[in-house]
């Protein structure tokens, strides 16, 4: 176990500063032993070497994709797959400038982002809350889980006709579909998170005098947190899938609508632009979730290194 501890990370292992085999515990606060991490002198160079190579490969990888795109569209290749109508990178780049001359493109983005934020936020609150309750209490599981299991296999997009009937406006039904897409991944991961909490932690909390309410707030919630965030990441991905589909089918405004409209209007460069915009927005959203997770769970980067 010791070797695992030392080897697991490049960061300075704590253990080296204070050997386990110290005689009788130092009395008072006279621990002259510093726990401050000492940074090895050549760490910057090592970091650059390992990260630098990795970053270079990233650039190469994306470069290959761009080059492929350029070649097949520039020479309008046709071999079963037809690149005849596909816009070149330059055409798409030019569209970026063009669409930004009016505010319409940004308005579309604004609509999509707003729908995602509202639908996803409701899914976060409901999914995590229900997941915690279902995970913790048998009664809640028996009451709520059957409903969830029956509705879960229905893809969010299949809700489109029903949503249009259910909700007063198109806008609300699109938000509803976005919500449906992200709700179940969050719910399922939260339930799993509650179940994955080591029972010894619950016993420890009980023996330290935690009542059910405090146990829930201080052990169940933080204990399930890593899985809840996994649910957020997956849910955000599905939310975008559902949103774009809903916008394409029933939408007014929105980046999905923009992309579909471009196809109807035979504006091929805008299709490419729409797709890239969707990709960038999705990336930004999952990045935001990852950063939030790291900020809320600074301990998570140490966890798991020595587990089971």
């Amino acid at each position, binding site marked *: *176990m*010791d070797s695992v*501890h030392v080897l697991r990370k490049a960061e300075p292992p*704590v*253990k080296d500063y*204070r050997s*386990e*085999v*110290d*005689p*009788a*515990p*130092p*009395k*008072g*606060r006279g*621990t002259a*032993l*510093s*726990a401050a991490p000492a940074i090895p002198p050549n760490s910057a160079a090592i970091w650059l070497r390992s990260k630098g190579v990795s970053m270079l490969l990233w650039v190469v990888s994306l470069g290959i994709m761009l080059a492929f795109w350029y070649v097949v569209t520039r020479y309008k290749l046709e071999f079963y797959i037809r690149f005849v109508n596909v816009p070149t990178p330059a055409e798409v780049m030019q569209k970026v400038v063009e669409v930004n001359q009016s505010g319409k493109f940004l308005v579309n983005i604004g609509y999509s982002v707003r729908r995602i934020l509202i639908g996803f936020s409701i899914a976060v609150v409901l999914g995590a809350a229900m997941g915690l309750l279902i995970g913790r209490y048998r009664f809640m599981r028996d009451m709520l889980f059957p409903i969830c299991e029956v509705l879960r296999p229905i893809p969010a997009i299949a809700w489109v006709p029903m949503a249009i009937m259910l909700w007063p406006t198109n806008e609300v039904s699109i938000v509803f579909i976005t919500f449906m897409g992200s709700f179940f991944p969050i719910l399922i991961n939260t339930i799993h998170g509650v179940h994955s909490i*080591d029972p*010894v*932690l619950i*016993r*420890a*909390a*009980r*023996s*330290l*005098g*935690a*009542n059910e309410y*405090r146990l829930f707030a*201080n*052990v169940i919630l*933080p*204990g399930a*947190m890593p899985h809840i965030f996994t649910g957020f990441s997956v849910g955000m991905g599905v939310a975008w899938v559902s949103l774009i589909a809903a916008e394409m089918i029933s939408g007014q405004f929105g980046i999905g609508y923009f992309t579909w409209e471009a196809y109807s209007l035979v504006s091929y460069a805008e299709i490419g632009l729409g797709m890239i915009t969707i990709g960038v927005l999705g990336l930004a959203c999952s990045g935001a979730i990852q950063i939030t997770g790291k900020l809320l*769970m*600074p*301990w*998570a980067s*140490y*966890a*798991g*290194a*020595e587990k089971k």
Partner: protein
Amino acid sequence: MNGNSKGAIDIHDLGVVFIAGDTRVEAVSAVNMNIKPGEFVSLIGPSGCGKSTLLNIVAGFVQPSFGAASIDGATIKGPGSECGVVFQQYSLFPWLSVRKNVEFGLKMKGAPASVRETQARTLLGLAGLLAFENHYPDQLSGGMKQRVGIVRALATSPQVLLMDEPFGALDAQTRVVMQEILTNMWQRFRISVLFVTHDIEESIFLSDRIYVMTARPGRIKAEIIVPLARPRTPEMTASAEFIAMVQQLKRLIREESLAAMGAELKDGGLSGFGTAVGPSGIAEMI
């Protein structure tokens, strides 16, 4: 910390039966034992003899099927802060820093933040862990985690400390050091301790008294008073007195282990030999 007046544990005619499906397992049977306030008592026996079950009853995690267990005359109803528990598995909350882990019990009691912090830092200082107060558990070695676990259990000033093979997962060298740290800390706090272990030397080194349990269903086979002086020092483990006690306990536990294996082997088809196989017979076969 709480004097020598509180923390008496009484276990009277206690039995535990687990029912799993249609099999009925008698884990512990007719156990009578007591721990006086401020006494360090070990519970030792072959694996599977129900010593952890007994500890879990005192902790309030398991309800006895028969008999009664009480602390200071009050029947144990459930887990609570009057009993500190140290588990064999690492049980620190990974999302809390070392200090916040130690503060946990005080927070559950509603102590104000400043009191919690002072108390936690004092105890961490005593255990030589103050430099690590802001580390997360996953940054610590196994021995340090268990030290934090002990400190956390002591932070609420419990009347009783229950320890379920707390050093079982540690390597031999770390164990010895941890035993010294524990005996020093006990010397300072003088609270009642029930210590479950299967390590004979460990139980003698730490305890005032040792209960030896039989193979399942666990009963009390013997009660042994450890005459070694306090405070205990590592040199004592080399004394003739200590070694004699080790021999005595080894003999007692060996009998029980063989009895336990005898029961398993009989179930496993040894009866087919048509001869009664007693414990000594198995020892010879092995």
